[in-house]
């Protein structure tokens, strides 16, 4: 007759516990959303601002009541920024350059990563330590020798032997970047080799043995079996390489300062806008001293930056799903 009482109390206790647990969960979820949304806003805010500025009319600059959405919509900013940047030829040029170097880097780094992951040859560990060394030495250290190297490019004096000249001047051509990316020594290539090596190390050995028994040689195994399986590290590497190459100002301004590429053009956008804007507006063309409104110039610069990063954002939107998924399975860590 006494037993129901404690059972009842216990059930009650359990229920209270459950309700309390649920309340904590909900509170925590709210807190988490607040954090995630807050941080996301900080990240996206400058982008939103640039979008808003790009469509803003000149008349809206001095209107303090406008926060985000302009009163007078206009495409003038975009048109002018495009004219100043010479946008579409520039974009085509840059994309061609970046795609070629990205493909070469990915190919050479995949080869090197596979070589380091699956073959034991004398000194392979030391050589891999040297790969890491290439990451650690700051690019500034190699800058001057590389510059002089490409200024009179010559391998082992072969060109000197044939033509008698002091090598070829490769500066302001695409060749310095093509050569460095084809030989897996370009921009952050050490990191890419590392990613590929970690991935290939994780592949089961039996696959290769089976391929060997079926009569596939090393190269064939790599091309037909290993590469098709390496999609996730490949996406990671391609995206990183593309983005960093596209944004790189260091090597492009060192080797190709006169070639029209997006990063060098964008970083000098302010000077260009200051010089060209009065002419485009039809005030004081031809070297007169009339200056454009600095606020207007800032607007054009923001629009130009937006135009420069739009291709990257589009690319990211397309691949981000694969990218984020691949991170979970990729070889970015052991």
């Amino acid at each position: 007759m006494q037993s129901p009482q404690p059972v009842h109390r216990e059930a009650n206790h359990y229920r209270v516990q459950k309700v309390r647990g649920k309340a904590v969960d909900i509170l925590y979820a709210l807190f988490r959303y607040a954090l995630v949304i807050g941080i996301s806003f900080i990240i996206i805010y400058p982008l939103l601002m640039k979008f808003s500025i790009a469509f803003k009319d000149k008349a809206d600059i001095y209107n303090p009541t406008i926060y985000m959405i302009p009163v007078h919509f206009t495409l003038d900013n975009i048109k002018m920024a495009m004219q100043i940047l010479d946008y579409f030829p520039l974009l085509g040029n840059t994309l061609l350059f970046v795609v070629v170097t990205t493909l070469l880097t990915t190919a050479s780094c995949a080869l090197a990563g596979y070589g380091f992951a699956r073959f034991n040859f004398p000194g392979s560990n030391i050589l891999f330590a040297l790969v890491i060394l290439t990451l650690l030495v700051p690019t500034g250290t190699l800058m001057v020798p590389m510059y002089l190297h490409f200024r009179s490019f010559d391998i082992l004096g072969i060109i000197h032997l044939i033509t008698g000249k002091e090598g070829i001047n490769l500066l302001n051509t695409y060749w310095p970047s093509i050569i460095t990316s084809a030989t897996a020594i370009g921009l952050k290539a050490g990191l890419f080799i590392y990613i590929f090596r970690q991935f290939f190390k994780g592949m089961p050995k039996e696959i290769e043995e089976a391929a060997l028994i079926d009569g596939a040689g090393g190269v064939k195994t790599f091309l037909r079996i290993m590469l098709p399986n390496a999609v996730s590290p490949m996406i990671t590497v391609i995206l990183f390489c593309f983005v960093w190459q596209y944004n790189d100002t260091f090597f492009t301004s060192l080797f190709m300062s006169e070639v029209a590429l997006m990063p060098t053009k964008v970083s000098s956008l302010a000077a260009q806008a200051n010089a060209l804007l009065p002419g485009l507006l039809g005030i004081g063309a031809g070297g007169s001293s009339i200056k454009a409104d600095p606020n207007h110039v800032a607007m054009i610069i923001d629009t130009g930056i937006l135009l420069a990063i739009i291709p990257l954002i589009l690319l990211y939107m397309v691949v981000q799903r694969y990218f984020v998924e691949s991170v979970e399975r990729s070889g970015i860590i052991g």
Partner: protein
Amino acid sequence: MRGSKLSLNHKRSFLGIAFIAPWLLGFVFMFATPLVQSIKFSFSKLTVDPSGFSLDWVGWSNFNNALFVDATFNRVLTESVRDMVLNVPMILFFSLFSATLLNQKFRGRILARAIFFLPVILASNAISAAEASGLINLVGDATAVNELGQSGSQYNVMSMVMILSDIGLPLSFVDYIVDAILRIYEIITSSGVQILIFLAALQSVPGAMYEVAKIEGATAYESFWKITFPLVSPLILTNVIYTIIDSFSGSSVTQMIFSTAFTTQNFGLSAAMSWIYTLIISLVLVIVGYVLSKRVHYN
């Protein structure tokens, strides 16, 4: 029997070398050779002429000039090292925090991840250079831009400083926290790759461990410090090293080395500066690597 096995091994090693051949070529001609040359340059006076360049041995004078004669090099160097020391813990803390956040299951997680990795895409020297020049253009003065940036976040800092010091925290710590909050944008934008690395590490922690801990009655706080933290600690080392290298690659020292070489044409001095810089980074990396690797948990 033995002979054929040996030859297979030989074949394998040749194949391996063939796979890394492009990299090896690049390493020898585009990395090792320039590296040796740059040591030579740092001890020489280099004059560029139309057909090539010539070197005159000057001994340690370039190093001497960089360290004791040049007016700004020391200051720029110490400043960028100090910035690095301040930034690395903040970036690390923020990226581990965000990765833990993004690893939990909630609605819109995929979107949140996409946004958190956006800085990886948008971090660009070209863009920041253009933005800065846009601001300079607007204000007309570079120092004004810096002040503008500092007061740019319209947040009343003093109130926070008061609250924190009222709690009784040491003032230097309060300074550090306030500094972190004011530069939150900078910190967020430079921690994209680190978030990625931590997230990948968190994904590899077996879920069963958390279940066991939960059954044993561990709170979320306890299971973070007893399970998550030890298991991602090897990646903390990786991330520290990555952050240090990354923070140096876009620093003002690099720009100074660049301008010494290509605007003032003093290649020898520039090479000496970059070697001093390289040695300091290596020293920092060795110290940090040594201290951290003793505390890292490997399983």
